[in-house]
């Protein structure tokens, strides 16, 4: 290997030059912090993914099998909670956001590098506490509904504290990004010259800063109820269980946009580069991110149509919910229009970005059934819902993340991955995903409730299909990661700009030097000037 000219160690490993534990653990370089987040969050993706495979395995048969129902409940709680709190919320914002916000806006680091390092370590502390609660496994579901969560013998109090720390890390990271985006853009980069990933990260950070305190308070109240017996949510103590649900969803609905907006930002970067076309409707995409962030705060009640909330409240929440669909739909139309008359190539980042669009359309359209009152009554809390959120979160966010990982891998590591393997992995991931989750729509329409460790035998056939699909999905993910890990050592050296992108990160070396740019670039144009301008310019 060593004699192959392409794979020999380069002279200059940029920000990766230093070695050793301290050089990582105490770094204030946003890129290294970003890399640590990538390893941490992907680690939990793998763990929670393995749990999901166990869940699916048990569901091969309708009756008792493999492990007890209680264990099933513990596993789906851990799967959901890890996927949400330890993987998908931090995965794009904290990991890729940290690495690429300064590079995309042309500055040397985030506004508060020391705070950034601190955020990472409280995130780790939060994880330690959360994972420590495994000693007394929890079976409440990731939604922790009271009064069940206040009564079960599990370690909800300790967990609340862990999630509180993780939430604090989100808030600090969000603040850091907002200040960075406001004050540290390269000379010449006005707001409308910012890459759309930055717009998306800006909207995301605003949601994180505004909504995360609410979940912090909620978990504190829950802990107070358990430890001191003060009745906030438990009717036996004079509390109101629906109050908990309001609190919970007031945070958790906006947070689904924390999960999806950054992925949309990645898609907005990748599609123009591989279509060689300017992004269609730049301002529409930018402002729709902000619109989604704001309207997203007003629709939490759509999780509670059958909870016992009043009919009038249900009607209002349903109405508002449909309004989030409008800016979301706009983005989809804009991406598709960007492809029009392009000169499209299908490298793996583009394949994942297109899969995002394809799967997210399905996730979004099935949301209409959940937003409409009459139909939600039937499909709420069934597998229809499970399918819907996996289409948006896994088909959406995770595909966006995979697009970003492939797109930026050369920049982050200075190496190229093997495109053939990447494509085979993509085939398996996308087809396995659909085989796993599409049958769940039908199961839900037929009435199979979610969180069912055992189920009536009439639902078996489709469950078997879903379980078999999960194996293909898993195989695809394994190949993808193996390809990455192998390429870290042996991949051919990456050029500075392998995809011929126009955003600033491609103007520096791969991997970038510690100070990002030898000389801070001056921006004279927006970053989507692909195509020839003398051919029918329009706006």
């Amino acid at each position: 290997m060593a004699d192959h000219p392409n794979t020999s160690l380069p002279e200059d490993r940029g920000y990766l030059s230093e070695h050793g534990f301290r050089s990582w653990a105490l770094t204030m370089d946003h890129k290294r912090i970003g890399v640590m987040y990538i390893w941490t969050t992907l680690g939990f993706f793998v763990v929670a993914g393995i749990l999901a495979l166990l869940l699916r395995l048990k569901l091969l048969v309708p009756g008792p099998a493999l492990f007890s129902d209680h264990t099933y409940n513990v596993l789906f709680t851990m799967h959901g909670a890890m996927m949400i709190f330890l993987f998908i919320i931090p995965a794009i914002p904290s990991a890729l956001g940290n690495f690429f916000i300064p590079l995309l806006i042309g500055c040397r680091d985030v506004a508060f590098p020391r705070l950034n390092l601190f955020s990472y370590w409280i995130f780790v502390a939060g994880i330690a506490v959360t994972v420590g609660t495994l000693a007394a496994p929890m079976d409440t579901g990731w939604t922790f509904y009271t009064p069940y969560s206040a009564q079960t013998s599990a370690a909800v109090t300790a967990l609340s504290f862990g999630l509180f720390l993780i939430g604090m890390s989100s808030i600090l990271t969000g603040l850091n990004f907002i200040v960075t985006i406001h004050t540290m853009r390269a000379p010449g980069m006005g707001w409308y010259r910012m890459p759309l990933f930055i717009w998306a990260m800006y909207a995301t950070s605003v949601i994180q800063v505004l909504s995360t305190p609410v979940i912090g308070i909620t978990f504190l109240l829950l802990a107070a109820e358990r430890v001191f017996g003060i009745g906030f949510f438990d009717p036996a103590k004079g509390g109101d269980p629906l109050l908990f649900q309001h609190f919970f969803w007031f945070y958790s609905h906006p947070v689904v946009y924390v999960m999806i907006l950054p992925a949309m930002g990645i898609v907005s970067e990748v599609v123009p580069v591989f279509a060689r076309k300017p992004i269609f409707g730049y301002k529409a995409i930018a402002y729709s991110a902000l619109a989604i962030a704001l309207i997203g705060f007003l629709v939490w009640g759509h999780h509670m149509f059958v909870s016992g909330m009043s009919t009038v409240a249900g009607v209002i929440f349903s109405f508002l919910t449909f309004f989030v669909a409008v800016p979301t739909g706009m983005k989809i139309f804009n991406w598709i229009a960007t492809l029009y008359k392009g000169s499209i190539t299908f490298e793996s980042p583009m394949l994942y970005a297109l899969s995002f669009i394809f799967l997210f359309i399905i996730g979004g359209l099935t949301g209409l059934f959940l937003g409409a009152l009459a139909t939600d009554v039937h499909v709420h809390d069934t597998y229809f819902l499970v399918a819907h959120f996996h289409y948006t979160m896994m088909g959406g966010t995770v595909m966006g993340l995979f697009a970003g990982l492939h797109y930026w891998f050369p920049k982050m590591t200075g190496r190229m991955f093997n495109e053939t393997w990447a494509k085979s992995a993509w085939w398996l991931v996308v087809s396995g995903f659909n085989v796993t989750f599409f049958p769940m729509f039908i199961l839900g329409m037929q009435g199979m409730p979610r969180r069912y460790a055992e189920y009536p035998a009439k639902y078996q056939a489709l469950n078997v299909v879903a379980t078999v699909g999960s194996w293909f999905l898993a195989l695809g993910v394994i190949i993808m990661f193996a390809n990455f890990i192998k390429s870290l050592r042996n991949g051919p050296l990456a050029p500075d700009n392998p995809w011929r992108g126009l955003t600033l990160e491609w103007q520096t070396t791969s991997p970038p030097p510690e100070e990002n740019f030898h000389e801070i670039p001056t921006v004279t144009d927006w970053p989507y000037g692909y195509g020839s301008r003398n051919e029918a310019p329009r706006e």
Partner: protein
Amino acid sequence: MPYPTTLKASEVSLASHDVDAVFIFILAIAGFFFVLTQGLLIYFAIRYRKKKGVEEATPYITGNHALEVVWIVIPSLLLVAIFVYGLTVFIKMRTPLPNAAEIQVTASQFTWSFKYPDGRSVANELRLPLGQPVKLIMISRDVIHGFFIPAYRQKQDVLPGSYTYLWLLPKQAGTYDIYCSQYCGTGHSLMRATLIVMPQPQYQAWVAAELQKQQAGAQSPAERGKALFESAGGGGCHSIDGSPKVGPTLKGIFGSRVTLTTGQSVVADEEYLRESLEEPNEQVVQGFQPIMPSFRGSLKQDEIAALIAYMKTLK
């Protein structure tokens, strides 16, 4: 029984037909946008793929205001239509029906108990006469549960500490599943019940027979215990045929030796069984969770004795 999906607009209850109509309406709109967007996505991807080796110049198109307006306005109008349609049917489901018979539904981990106007209560089986409007008045004894009849397209969470309601109008005789749709703990997925809709004459006959059985009085303690076991929902967690459920089976329980979570092994005598009913979580059998509710207060002493007598018969 072939299972009705949401697409086979079925006329089995109050709103099932309307809900299915809304479903199909949304499906039509969603289907249109699905074909439009995925069609264009795939068509553009193929039509405008880069041809071998030639880097074609692409036009500098950055947007189009007219198009932008079109794809805000048209979807918005359709969304409002969906909202209004969904809303009307929802209101219909929640509007009180005149002359509704009232049935009290009590949910507890992991049993449904139905109490009829004549005072009888039955666990995990709800019988209704065809065509008679019914109002379910529901409450939970412990955590939140969800009352869900898939075939009726109706669902309502059941809360501790406050009533929630559901209006039913059975329009077809038959047997339907009732599930718990809100996660409530270990036995959640087994918290199922059956809805049996009977034509009026059969229903009357059934009620009469039940009442007669009740009035026949002079039950032996074991018979009385059996009835109590069924109405208090013991069968939700314990089998009487040896198979494990959420709780240990009661087959052959009396006089057997059981190992507790503490590692201790005790003989299940009368005192052990009494304690298991009144302080169930003091002594928990190995391999099970301390989740059984206490029946202290809700069962009188002679009722506990009757239950023990019944358990002795489970050989």
